[in-house]
């Protein structure tokens, strides 16, 4: 995977509202919510990294981008199916059902 491809993948995972699985080059997998990414590096960490919130772990896990082999969007997308239109449709159905009862 090229650096550009990896950057695009990280961006997609960062925007995703569900858990992701990060496949590391050494074969390990990390599952959690990708809450932050810094592809330029920061003052406290010169190397590009991602940060993940992992269930049951109090601290954010930081992973260097060079260790990442791939990222998959594996958790439920918590933003899916929650549009305004869907809410209105649901309300209409509910009201109709109440009217019949």
């Amino acid at each position, binding site marked *: 995977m090229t650096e550009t491809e990896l950057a695009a993948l990280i961006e997609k995972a*960062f*925007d995703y*509202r*569900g*858990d992701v699985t990060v496949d590391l080059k050494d074969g390990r997998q990390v599952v*959690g*919510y990708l*809450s*932050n*990414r*810094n592809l330029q590096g*920061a*003052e*406290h960490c010169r190397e590009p990294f991602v*940060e993940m*919130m*992992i*269930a*049951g772990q109090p601290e*954010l896990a930081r992973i260097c981008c060079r260790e990442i082999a791939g990222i998959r969007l594996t*958790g*439920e997308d*918590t*933003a899916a199916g*929650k*549009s*305004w239109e869907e*809410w*209105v449709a649901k309300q209409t159905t509910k009201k109709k059902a109440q009217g019949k009862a």
Partner: protein
Amino acid sequence: MSVPVSQAFTICSYVIRQRLKGNKYYPLVLMLEPLFRCNLECAGCGKIQYPEHVLERRLTPEQCFHAAEECGAPVISLPGGEPLIHPEIKEIVEGLVARKKYVYLCTNALLLKRKLDLFTPSKYFTISVHLDGMEEEHDQSVCREGTFKNAVEAIREALKRGFRVTTNMTLFEGANPERVRAFFDYLTELGVEGIMLSPGYSYSHAPDQKHFLNRNRTHDLFNRILANPKKAWQFNQSPLFLEFLMGHRDYNCTPWGMPTYNIFGWQKPCYLLQDGYALTFKQLIAETDWSHYGHHTQNPLCRDCMVHSGYESTAVNDTFGSWEGFLRTVKVTLFGGLGKGYRNGRQAELAAQLAASGHGQKPASACGCGCSASEQKEPVDAGKPSEQKERV
């Protein structure tokens, strides 16, 4: 403006101190989100869409105090999620008040009546209840019936017990200016200390993308609502910000003025956009490329945003940074006249923009005759808010 004198003095002296120090990037209000979990699922909100293990997390009181001390803002807003769900909200509020911070607890009020006993009335503590309009509009906005009644009941109880109570309102596409004005009358009668207003803004994670306002329509809507405001209406925000919403003043965004801290860290660059997180407030200021944000930068994400979290601190800076801004604030605060006296400047430009854009009528105040914007209303059906939204 309905802020108590002591609070106005604290903010004024803080801003003057920062300016004397030559500090450009100073915060006015810390948006401290102690959790994302909420007991409502509003269609306009993208703050709650996270996996369960993220929603379960909360900032500890110590993390909250550390964030408050680290950034030094004199005012702290506690939104969320719903802060009253936080099991240590009492400790958080008490600790911040003990540090002499002006705390605004932003709540949907579903739990307020039951949890009022946790708190003690104080000039440092304000309960800011989310109300987006009268019963029909509000319940539709928060996607749950009965919420308005519940909130009003809680407001009455809080006022009875001597708490400072304000309301905060987000206005979306399709809002009916007449209904909003009637809502202000209702809140005034209810006895709240002040009303906070902000236009809804289509930030990337909000599921209801369709009903947010663009810039010209924001000007148009706020002109219709705020032209000839009643003297009794009290707004808990800068009059210059309100005039900015009406299109009479042009400001750029100062996102560092209301920084956000939550379980992920210090949010870059602002309350609404999520472009990553910094470990410390110092890093947030140093590492964020601020020149990339604000509507003057042509950043498409910022093009239509006029939200208070980006622009109210600019308005406050204007008050204390220019004689014109200071005198205007004093004049409007003491004598009223919000939006008046601009007819040869920004209003004419606004009227031309609105005419060119082909939507909305010329704002009444743009004609210069002082007639009420509310008299030039669009033929909207107040009884069908969802259809109003659909129609746009």
